[in-house]
């Protein structure tokens, strides 16, 4: 990176969704208009997703500053004030290098290994990656380590798979290295189907070479002849950046035939998924790569022995591979110093929902949920009350406030009823109904069940029917027992872990929020005021100022009242669309 002044815009999917492209265009226009010799670049996601669009300014003689929530019409001010006059615009500055800002805690409380480059380098420029020590690990491996030594190093680091199950990576590589076959495949699982999780996307978009370097090292360690990256179809930007990174790595001799003159050869092909959650499961993923319906099959035989086209296949998650170059560069010992006895290193979480600072949070294993949600995340939005955190997506669970001091690692979370999962962490406040949330996940798993085995295909459907009637106020007293019984049968009887974990969201909400189920069933009441069949809308005459906004916007004409006098809602006409709640600036509309 040169000594020139630089403006960098975060243009990952989230930055683009927040309007990053028009901010970028505006910056280019301003700089051209004023004839400034400033370099404009783009980068991946630094993780401050709550404050997108992010613009970083590096100006000689000034600390580096990241501005948040930048809109196109802020650009002239920033260019004029910061780049020309050399003044930091305090109220827009999210982060000022070396100084304390209110949002600095978000990064300060994290430990970044996997995300070290995300949001800092230009992911489409291989030289940026190399400048940060990229491909050093590969050189070290190919010039001085045997495959066995590489596997031992990974085993000694204690790295466990980040795709959900937490299987020790070194052990997995050993199994595949031992297996015999004409060809051998190394596969990166970039299917990231867990709704509410985007860490793999961020790594692929922000630092694709790290994943590729990890894959090549893994390929060498197991003796792979071919590589695949199976990427979700919903991630077009990640696919594009991966393809470019593969082409660039190949042209530099890091990939392809006779890599760095070592005699080892590997090619990597990107395969786009076609929208099926179950294809994240290893045997289904293999079927999908072969061009078939992505249905899991019983194991054994395990993919390590019989995978793609019947050949030994090793599948690891994106984040798992992204850890590998760091471990090789810094040694296993240093990696194993981080974390807990059974869980080493860090984990990237996607902090979303009702948390104030939502985004990418990479923390050391063993950090408590409280530190993640309140330390990194800054607590709950709009001063509301924390109710639960959902960890691990459709296979995971919801933990209540009393368990906020649970450390995040592979042992403590399952003990509490949740799982580490891929890293989705959705925080909910008192406006979320836990029965509805359980129903949401069941709707998802039921829809995504591939239909091959009966417990999953029919069991999830029956559970969903029960949850649906509970949310409608038609639940029966025996429904809770029935849900628990079905859950156990589905867990035990399903062919793959889609069904095997599908009941978890229901089981944990039953365990920690049973009173909400009881309120729905016995009292026909939704404590969060969310289940439309169980609530009625009212206006608090004390709070209502009679401004008329709700009246004007009610689509069914259910609200009446004189100006400047409290309004009322006609229950018979109300269609419960929540428009009035959203519009009221005085918090006067409430549900019972």
């Amino acid at each position, binding site marked *: 990176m040169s000594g020139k002044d630089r403006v960098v815009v975060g243009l990952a*999917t989230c930055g683009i969704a927040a309007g990053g492209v028009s901010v970028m265009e505006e910056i280019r226009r301003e700089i051209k208009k004023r004839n400034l010799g400033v370099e404009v670049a783009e980068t991946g996601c630094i993780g401050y997703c709550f404050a997108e669009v992010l613009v970083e300014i590096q100006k000689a003689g000034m600390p580096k500053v990241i501005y948040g929530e930048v809109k196109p019409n802020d650009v002239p001010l920033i260019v004029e004030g910061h780049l020309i006059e050399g003044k930091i615009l305090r109220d827009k500055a999210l982060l000022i290098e070396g100084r304390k800002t209110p949002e600095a805690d978000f990064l300060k409380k994290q430990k970044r290994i996997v995300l070290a480059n995300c949001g800092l380098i230009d992911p489409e420029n291989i030289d940026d990656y190399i400048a940060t020590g990229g491909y050093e690990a590969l050189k070290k491996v190919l010039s001085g380590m045997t495959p066995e030594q590489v596997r031992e190093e990974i085993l000694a680091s204690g790295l466990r798979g980040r795709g959900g199950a937490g299987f020790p990576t070194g052990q997995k590589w050993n199994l595949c290295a031992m297996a015999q076959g004409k060809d051998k495949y190394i596969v990166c699982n970039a299917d990231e189907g867990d709704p*509410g999780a*985007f860490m793999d996307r961020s790594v692929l978009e922000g630092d694709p070479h790290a994943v590729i370097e990890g894959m090549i090292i893994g390929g060498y360690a197991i003796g792979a002849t071919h590589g695949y990256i199976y990427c979700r*179809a919903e991630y077009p930007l990640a696919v594009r950046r991966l393809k470019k990174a593969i082409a660039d790595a190949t042209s530099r001799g890091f990939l392809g035939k006779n890599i760095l003159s070592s005699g080892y050869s590997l090619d990597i092909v990107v395969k786009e998924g076609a*929208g099926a959650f179950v294809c994240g499961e290893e045997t289904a993923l293999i079927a999908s790569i072969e061009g078939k319906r992505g249905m899991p099959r019983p194991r054994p035989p395990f993919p390590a022995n019989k995978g793609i086209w019947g050949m030994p296949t090793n599948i690891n998650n994106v984040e798992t591979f992204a850890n590998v170059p760091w471990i090789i560069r810094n040694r296993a010992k240093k990696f194993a110093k981080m974390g807990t006895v059974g869980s080493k290193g860090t984990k990237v979480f996607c902090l979303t929902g009702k948390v104030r600072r*939502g985004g990418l949070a990479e923390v050391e294993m063993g950090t408590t949920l409280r530190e993640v949600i309140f330390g990194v995340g800054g607590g709950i939005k709009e001063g509301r009350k924390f109710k639960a955190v959902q960890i691990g*997506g459709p296979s995971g669970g919801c933990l209540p406030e009393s368990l906020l001091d649970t450390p995040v690692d592979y042992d403590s979370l399952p003990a509490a009823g949740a799982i580490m999962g891929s890293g989705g962490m959705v925080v909910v406040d008192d406006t979320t109904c836990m029965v509805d949330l359980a129903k949401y996940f069941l709707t998802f798993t039921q829809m995504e069940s591939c239909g091959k085995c009966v417990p999953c295909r029919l069991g999830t459907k029956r559970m969903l029917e029960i949850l649906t009637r509970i949310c409608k106020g038609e639940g029966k007293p025996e429904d809770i027992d029935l849900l628990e019984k079905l859950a156990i049968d589905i867990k035990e009887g399903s062919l793959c872990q889609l069904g095997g974990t599908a009941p978890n969201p229901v089981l944990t909400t039953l365990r920690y929020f049973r009173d909400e189920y009881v309120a729905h069933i016995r009292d026909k009441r939704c404590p969060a005021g969310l289940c439309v069949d169980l609530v009625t809308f009212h206006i608090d005459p004390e709070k209502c100022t009679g401004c008329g906004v709700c009246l004007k916007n009610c689509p069914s004409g259910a609200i009446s009242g004189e100006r400047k006098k409290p309004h009322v809602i006609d229950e018979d006409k109300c269609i419960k669309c929540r428009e009035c709640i959203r519009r009221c600036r005085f918090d006067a509309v409430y549900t019972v």
Partner: protein
Amino acid sequence: MMSAYSPGACDNGEQSRVLEKILKKYKGSEGALIPVLQEAQEALGYLSEETLKKIAKATGRTLAQVYGVATFYAQFRLEPIGKHLVRICHGTACHVAGADDIDAAVCGHLGLPEEGGTTGDMEFTVEKVVCVGACSLAPIMIVDGVAHGRLNPDKARSVIKSYQKSENERSGGGARSGKRAQKKK
């Protein structure tokens, strides 16, 4: 089920040529059925019965096998879609941020049932999708590949209106927009 809809301006002859090209590119490569279907859909808008038959023949599979794969994956469409594809995210973060309200607003505005579908004038198709990976900006929807985040029902409606507007400007309010006006309630 099969309609005479032809996406864009290309006639049937041209469609065949496009498909031939894709099939030729993947000829002989094992396991290429999914990329073939993906590229065919990308080029032709959707996978018609005709298209599936041709793909089956060229890849040496039965129509049932090809149909089985095409219906297994959510990405594939066997029906034509509208000019603009609106995908409303229903991932967890979007769900707790009110994705249902966005759905109701968009579908209500376009006169579609809440589960989505295609408008009678073939202008808009509304789909539900699960997590587009920009959860911090929930709720979110993607229109023709462009993500719009931090929505509320009003914002969502105005996003849709902006596509209707640009449509009107381009076609000068031709026959198509006339049809849409009838459809809207």
